[in-house]
């Protein structure tokens, strides 16, 4: 008996969470896929009608805006956060005296919820209250900084707030990566008289490839599921200029009683996540098999 327990304990312990994941992730995933093929409105219906919801989705200009915003926001957010995070990490890595304090300051935005970040930036960026009003009160009457209320620029305010929130976290990731590089190699390079920037660009950064990948995966999923920041900062506006797929899905499911449409947009979002995560998993698994 005790032998059986010993053999099977890991499975027994894992079973509840395994079942929970099976039902609540994969079960509901299949449910959503099913509903996305129906004409569900207020309540889910189960008669399959084909791809009508996907046709409606791709015919909707608002969905176009949401997808374009996702790619624009995602690309800028990920690239700038990583560049800024790396830069901060390298600067912090120069054995400066107050590193601990500075590190904490940069990491602190991560402790705030996106709603707080969004609300604070909403006030900062509001032309009548924030930066624009302040600079104008200094006497620069023609100063303009109205991104928040300009439909063409509003999406960049979301990028700005998201980077402010996340770049400290990326910095911490990279700092850990920098510290894990073998100091022997760096010393050897310094003995050979190689300039510092070459040491970073040719030795340290290439050896941090796994960190780049983790940072990318974390930031990418943050970008795709972004919802609270948009709601707090712009509410999707002006108009629906800053809609993202997640806010589109919410509007369809909970405000408009159009569950089929919400389900189909959820499936497309999942498709986007898969196209990012599957190559990652594939490369990870292959690395292990090697």
């Amino acid at each position, binding site marked *: 008996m005790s032998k059986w327990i010993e053999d099977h304990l890991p499975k027994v312990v894992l079973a509840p969470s395994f079942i929970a994941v099976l039902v609540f992730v994969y079960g509901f995933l299949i449910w959503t896929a099913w509903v996305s093929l129906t004409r569900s409105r207020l309540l889910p219906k189960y008669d399959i009608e084909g791809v009508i919801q996907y046709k409606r989705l791709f015919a909707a200009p608002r969905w176009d805006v949401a997808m374009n915003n996702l790619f624009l926001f995602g690309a800028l957010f990920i690239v700038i956060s990583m560049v800024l995070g790396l830069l901060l990490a390298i600067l912090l890595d120069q054995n400066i005296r107050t590193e601990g304090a500075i590190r904490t300051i940069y990491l602190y935005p991560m402790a705030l919820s996106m709603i707080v970040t969004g609300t604070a930036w909403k006030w900062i960026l509001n032309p009548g209250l924030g930066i624009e009003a302040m600079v104008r009160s200094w006497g620069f009457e023609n100063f303009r900084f109205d991104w928040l209320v300009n439909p063409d620029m509003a999406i960049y305010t979301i990028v700005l707030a998201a980077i402010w929130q996340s770049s400290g976290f990326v910095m911490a990731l990279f700092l850990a990566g920098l510290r894990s590089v073998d100091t022997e190699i760096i010393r050897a390079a310094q003995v050979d008289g190689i300039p510092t920037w070459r040491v970073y660009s040719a030795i340290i950064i290439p050896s941090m490839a796994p960190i780049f990948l983790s940072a990318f995966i974390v930031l990418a999923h943050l970008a795709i599921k972004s919802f609270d920041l948009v709601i707090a900062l712009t509410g999707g506006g002006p108009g629906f*200029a800053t809609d993202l797929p997640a806010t589109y899905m919410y509007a369809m499911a909970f405000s408009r009683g159009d569950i089929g449409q919400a389900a189909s947009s959820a499936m497309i979002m999942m498709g986007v996540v898969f196209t990012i995560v599957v190559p990652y998993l594939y490369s990870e698994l292959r690395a292990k098999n090697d």
Partner: protein
Amino acid sequence: MKRLALSVSAAALVVANAAYAEPKAEVLHWWTSGGEAKSVAVLQKEFADNGGTWTDMPVAGGGGDAAMTALRARVLSGNAPTAVQLKGPAIQEWYEEGVLADISSVAEAEGWADVLPASIAAHMKCEGSWCAAPVNVHRVDWIWANADVLEANGIEMPTTWEDFNAAADKLQAAGIIPLAHGGQAWQDATVFEAVALGILGPDGFRKAFVDLDEATLTSPEMVAVFDQMRKMRGYVDPNFPGRDWNLATAMVMNGEAAFQIMGDWAKGEFLAAGKAPGEDFLCASVPGEGFLYNVDSFAMFDVDGDDNKAGQELLAKLIVGPSFQKVFNLNKGSIPARTDVALDEFDSCAELSAADMQASSDGGSLLPSYAHGMALRGAQSGAITDVVTQHFNSDMSSEEAVKQLAAAVANSL
């Protein structure tokens, strides 16, 4: 024989029990803020005074979205509340899911058909039987103005859109924001439907936003509506996106802006700030003929148990009863849905609203508000609002907006 008598009296007892079942009602609503909460408390008290037990189920948040999510969960689990704050076509949508009760017996006993305007009564019926009880009538097509600002600039309340444009140009030249507006999709839609009612007229409005007639949606008049919206965009201060409606009302109150187009809940803000109608602020219907209503109502869900059914009937009777209609609407700033309530205690704006409702009901121009979910189902009205708000917030041409409007409506069906 004795045994028979016993069983008969036992049966009589059961029947009597059923008839005297204590009325119970569980009420789902999202009236949780200040004046609204006070208004619901009025109903709660009346219900208790008539021997009922009220279970309150307030779900705040998202303009009712959160409450609708709660309702969906309750209905799917087969445990619907007795009465739910629902309005417009949403009542019919839930009826089609087969979950609403029939309260025709109360409605007929109380003679609802005689006291409610016909077009409002139509919202309360599901395929001929009564399934909901109206609480109030909000008028949506109001234009509010700061009396001092208008006087100082020699401007009368506009009666045509040309007048409005002329007045707005004059105000703008004088350095006053002509139109206080908050850039949220539903507020854009509120202004849009007020403009549409004025330019399309009541018949055109009905064809466009009730029947979704494609010819009307793409007509030259609709292009003119979007042209006027482009003008309105110019009368709004640059800082408008995301502003809440009550902040826009405050701009009118303190003279920063002259006009606001908003439903009569804006009156509550003026009154709460101690302003007097006719002296400090003016109210008028927007230029054009007609009356756009936003009627709050309670839909009655199918429930089991005599106590619940008794509660439902009592609730329906009280909601449409004259005393509740008066007290509730005095608190909420709207007007009673029934037309036979004395309006002595109401203010001049409410009296104007009630008179216009009666006149437009007789003239066939009493129309449901599309922006507030009275005319269309969520998917269709949402599709229209998407186009309206995108046009308002970009430099889209009116012709392009009309084209997109027709496409969006077709895509939402």
